[in-house]
């Protein structure tokens, strides 16, 4: 019978850990690429409704967000429990939307301004009244492309 093992080398050689960082770096690159760091802190309850016919929102840099919902518990003694509008990091009134859209629009390249989309992230417990006011304000600010944010679900009823 042939002998494959060399005489004398009985102890197991140590595994080289040099390739371990490579694997970890690979994982890091994956997470770095897929990370979107949330820049706004949510101050309102925000569970968007489910829908089956959702489309993915492409080009996140062209999207500005409007959050609507009940203020979170820690803000309730100051702002009450009625649904409110959040723009950037603060509560806002319907009248502030015009300025918000104008600022967001200014940040975009002139050629891309028509493609600007407003994503309405509205809590499912909200009544339509405030949403209607926001939509009217958006029409007045001529931000006409909107996206009703929704989770993808299999069935809605």
């Amino acid at each position, binding site marked *: 019978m042939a002998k494959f093992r060399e005489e004398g080398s009985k102890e197991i050689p140590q595994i080289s850990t040099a390739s371990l960082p490579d694997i970890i770096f690979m994982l890091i690159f994956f997470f770095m690429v897929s*990370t979107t*760091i949330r820049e706004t802190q949510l101050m309102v309850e925000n569970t968007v409704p489910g829908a089956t016919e959702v*489309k993915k929102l492409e080009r996140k840099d062209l999207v500005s967000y409007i959050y609507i919902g009940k203020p979170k518990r820690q803000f309730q003694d100051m702002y009450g429990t009625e649904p409110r509008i959040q723009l950037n990091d603060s509560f806002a009134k319907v009248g502030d939307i015009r300025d918000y859209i104008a600022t967001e629009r200014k940040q975009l390249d002139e050629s891309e301004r028509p493609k600007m989309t407003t994503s309405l992230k509205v809590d499912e417990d909200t*009544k339509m009244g405030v949403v*209607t006011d926001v939509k009217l304000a958006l029409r007045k600010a001529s931000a006409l492309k909107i996206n*009703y944010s929704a989770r993808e679900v299999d069935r*809605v*009823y």
Partner: protein
Amino acid sequence: MARPKGEFNAAPMADIAFLLLIFFLVATTFDVDTGIMRKLPPIPDEEQQRQQDDKQIKERNVFEVLINSNDQLLVEGDPMDISNLRESAKEFIVNPRNETDLPEMEMKEVPFFGETERTKGIVSLQNDRGTSYEMYMKVQNELTAAYNEVHDDLAMRKFGQHYKELTKEKKDAIDEKYPMIISEAEPKNVGGN
């Protein structure tokens, strides 16, 4: 004596890499933004307003959907459950048997189809200020689903492919044959805020 190999101790490197990895793991939120796209109508100026008022749309060409403040549906004058909305909207859009209470067809030149019949139907959606957003989204979802199914059916019949697999030109042609027009009337305020 063994010659020193050109290796360095790589163990701390793994530590640093782990640290970074943990940071990105924590900071990652996989929120893909999804939703239903809509286009709001521009605010008409006075001239356009007057023209609009003159232009009467025939009742048979309008699919009227009302949602009241108790989240109940009234479709074309009859109460309806949300689960039937999709089918009845589809029938309205296609009008397969050319019925007289469903929308008229007009002849129009559409790429890929040539001179073809095109529906004049539009969907009119009106809600109350007290309607819940959840119900409103369900209705929007069903109406979108109805249009999507009609488009997909046509794509299968005409091109033998699903709508989403078609080229942009073919998609546009189908959109033009069954244009998705959902007009939203100013909401009523019956149920209070």
